[in-house]
């Protein structure tokens, strides 16, 4: 489907992402935003219910969060911005207008670098990031006895801080759009401003898609696609839409400007609203809120709160000698990256330490993370404790085979490596006097392997070593044991 499209047309995609901010209270009132799972209409007050006479007051933390986002996306932070009223009637909009930002958003002119695996890196422009408020939630029901439809309103979500991130029409494939969303979500989570969970609705994406002949400068007529509730849905909807538009264009038709909705069950987009039916939002400056003035000092203080961002972290890890794959995986989340950094630091500032820490975090720690579906900040083994374990292996106090069991025991009990090794007697056996007896016993009870070895079959030595490891429950230092076997057999 996609390959035929690529012959004639170039796809142009811009994304609008709405992100709920993780502030404790709502955008314009003191109500808690912790309403997930709460009874409907329990996290409400006259302000977020739009009662007569109420007034909004700006949540400073939300402004801090959106400024952090703007800085992380390389935007200019406006010293002077303002809020506007966006007018449209709908029962989920408690005041009959939404407080948003029209012509003077807080953040403008940024960019985000992305790279679809196996393709060239691309820089996607960020047009603007602005602040607004979320609506209430409508629940549509059918009366079981009459079959009549009705709707309920849950106002808990009303007034939750919502940030809208608008990209330039810089993406050319559905895969790029998905990669943009993945990287955007990663940054939002890194800087701690949002859970950015699409399935839970705190990260929502609308797409503008158009097609134009390859080489053309002018954009085609864009279609807005809504109702996509996962990264996969965004990708699939864009794949569908580029094929649909290409077919219309190739058969001589034109694309009307419209809003279409993605129907996940049927994997199609359907027309929702034409341009003629579009609202005139009658934006005008919000008279209840004075303009927002952010001083350079304030912006600098907010900027100082930003952690090292994923792209920069990745570069740093590459410079330590790690591979692209390792660096990408280790910087996937801020928790993981910080766990790695701390482990590395505890091992010492050497290339070998960087590699050792990477090996352990990518294997044992990530296995635990995947099994438990938790990030590494929840791992009961702290970075210092992991470093202690690694150093025991390095110092040959335990074997690497035993170390994996020790790791499991540490994760389960929260105890330190040395404590577990002492309790369970797991220290490495590397003394010849201690091992010689075991080696002789193994040789005595494995006549066939011994004969094979003497007949020139080198692999039999590995078999005998395996038997020694089994006898010692993995505690024998393999190099020492192997030398002893060879010596014994040579006699």
């Amino acid at each position, binding site marked *: 489907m996609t390959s035929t499209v690529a012959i004639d047309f170039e796809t142009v995609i811009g994304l609008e992402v709405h992100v709920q901010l993780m502030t404790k209270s709502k955008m314009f009132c003191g109500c808690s935003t912790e309403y997930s799972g709460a009874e409907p209409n329990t996290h409400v*007050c*006259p302000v977020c*219910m*739009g*009662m*007569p*006479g*109420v*007034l*909004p*007051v*700006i949540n400073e933390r939300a402004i801090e969060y959106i400024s952090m986002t703007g800085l992380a996306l390389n935007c200019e932070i406006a010293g002077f911005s303002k809020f506007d*009223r966006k*007018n449209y*009637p709908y*029962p989920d909009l*408690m*005041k*009959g*207008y939404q407080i948003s930002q029209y012509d003077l958003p807080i953040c403008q002119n940024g960019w985000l670098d992305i790279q679809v695996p196996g393709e060239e890196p691309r820089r996607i422009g960020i047009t603007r990031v602005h602040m607004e408020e979320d609506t209430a939630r409508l629940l549509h029901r059918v009366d079981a006895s009459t079959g009549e439809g009705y*709707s309920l*309103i849950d106002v808990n979500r009303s007034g939750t801080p919502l940030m809208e991130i608008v990209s330039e029409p810089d993406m050319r494939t559905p895969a790029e759009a998905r990669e943009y969303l993945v990287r955007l979500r990663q940054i939002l989570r890194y800087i701690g401003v949002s859970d950015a969970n699409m399935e839970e609705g705190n990260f929502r994406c609308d797409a503008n898609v158009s097609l134009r002949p390859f080489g053309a400068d002018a954009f085609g007529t864009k279609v807005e696609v809504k109702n996509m509730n996962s990264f996969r849905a965004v990708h699939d909807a864009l794949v569908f839409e580029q094929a649909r538009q290409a077919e219309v264009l190739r058969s001589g038709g034109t694309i009307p400007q419209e809003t279409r909705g993605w129907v996940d069950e049927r994997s199609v987009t359907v027309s929702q609203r034409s341009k003629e039916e579009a609202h*005139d939002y*009658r*934006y*005008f400056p919000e*008279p*209840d*809120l*004075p303009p927002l003035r952010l001083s350079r000092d304030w912006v600098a203080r907010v900027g100082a709160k930003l952690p090292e961002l994923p792209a920069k972290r990745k570069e740093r890890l590459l410079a330590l000698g790690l591979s692209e794959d390792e660096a990408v995986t280790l910087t996937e989340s801020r928790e993981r990256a910080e766990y790695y950094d701390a482990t590395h630091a505890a091992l010492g500032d050497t290339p070998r330490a960087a590699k050792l820490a990477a090996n352990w975090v990518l294997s044992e720690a990530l296995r635990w993370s995947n099994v438990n579906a938790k990030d590494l900040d929840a791992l009961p083994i702290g970075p210092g404790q992991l470093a202690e374990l690694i150093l025991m292996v390095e110092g040959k106090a335990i074997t690497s085979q035993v170390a994996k069991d020790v790791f499991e025991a540490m994760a389960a009990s929260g105890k330190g490596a040395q404590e577990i090794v002492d309790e369970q007697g797991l220290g490495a056996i590397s003394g010849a006097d201690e091992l010689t007896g075991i080696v002789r016993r193994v040789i005595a009870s494995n006549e066939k392997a011994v004969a094979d070895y003497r007949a020139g079959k080198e692999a039999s030595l590995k078999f005998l070593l395996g038997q020694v490891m089994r006898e010692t429950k993995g505690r024998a230092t393999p190099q020492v044991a192997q030398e002893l076997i060879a010596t014994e057999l040579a006699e």
Partner: protein
Amino acid sequence: MSDLWRLTGHEAHEGLRRREFTAVELTESVLTRVLEVEPQVHAYITVTADVALEQAREADAKYASGTATPLAGIPVAVKDLIVTKGVRTTAGSRILENFVPPYDSHVYEQLRRAGAVMVGKANMDEFAMGSSTEHSAFGPTSNPWDISLVPGGSSGGSAAAVAAGEALVALGSDTGGSIRQPAAFCGVVGLDPTYGRVSRFGIVAFGSSLDQVGPIGRDVEDVAVMLDCIAGHDPRDATSNPEPKPDFRNYLARGIEGMRIGVPKEYFVEGMEPGVRARIDESLRILEQDLGCTVDRELSLPSTEHALAVYYIIAPSEASANLARYDGVKYGFSDRTGNSMWQNMEDTRQGGFGVEVKRRIMLGTYALSAGYYDAYYVKAQKVRTLINREFQAAFERYDLIVTPTAPTVAFPIGAKLDDPYAMYLNDIYTIPASVAGLPAISVPCGESEGLPVGVQFIGNFWQEGKLLQAAYAFETAVGWANRVAEVGGSG
């Protein structure tokens, strides 16, 4: 003791303090007066006798314990767009006829803290849109001096209640003259504070960038006492001035010798009744000859002739958004006879809003619409800036500006109801200060054809103190203050 309702607030406070009578006796006297004249005046939408008596008992306890402040036990009329918890608040509209707020406005909280007694919720033009109180869904209020005449508006109920002795003092709200013009028509003192001086939290919004709550009293001292109670910073209103407020009562007895008064010549050209003109000329003579001010009648404010047009674009634009929340879904009047949600919303608004409100919603919606926004709203804001600059230039040369409050005395009920433009013109002298956000006060200056005439003093931002100082000196010199209308009955 039966005519305690004739006292001013500060006189009553002295009597209460000296234990000459109790707050309950005072309140009962006022409630008796209400019973007597309310059938003719109709100053109230809701009389809150039970609330008043309970608050009076609380006030008596304060006097007994020596903790009473000047407003303790003083009967107050509260305009019905001031939100009062548990007491129906209609804003003069059918669409809120059954709305009982779950919270208190800032100003009512302040009154309660001061121990004031709420006699009732005063009648008003629906959503404060009008200059005669005829546009109330609950029927018009009559002017206590002649019940065939209007009391002015929109705070006509508040002004009439004070003039008729149905309250000692009142709260009104002023958007383009809604305190000052009814104060002039009813022979009482009314102050529109600087925009931002009094919190708008809990004031049913009309024109958010213009609305301001202010006091009405039978003399200037009562108005100062009330302003001291309601003014000051409120963090729930982002447009409220964070600076500490001065003690306004301190300004009263300072005298005004040497004060520079500017009189805009543009205000004396046409439309002013000869009787009003004569009173204003006499007022200027008193200010100059008796009180030692310098009066310059050559002040020019050329842009103020556009203030009416500016006002009738900005206020309706803001109102068109402010009134969008009244859709019958959440509270208030709801017509549910239609066959769809949208039909019910339309029917609710069709039946719930009066003709003047619908007119202004349409004006505002039109002015904000795509293609008209720049020509109307943006242009109006620019002219608003020019008007501001003119006033600022004038205040470099003058302490205060003096004008008539209204071009006419009170007019007959029904006289201007069919001619909205003639009605709008009655606010021609009050609107410029509103558009600029300046404080202004109307003080009685005598009579024309047996009806009260008001003179308006306009001050620079935050100079309510100077306004009260001048108004107090003027009031003393004129000798018209503190008259109660007998309303036929009680002679």
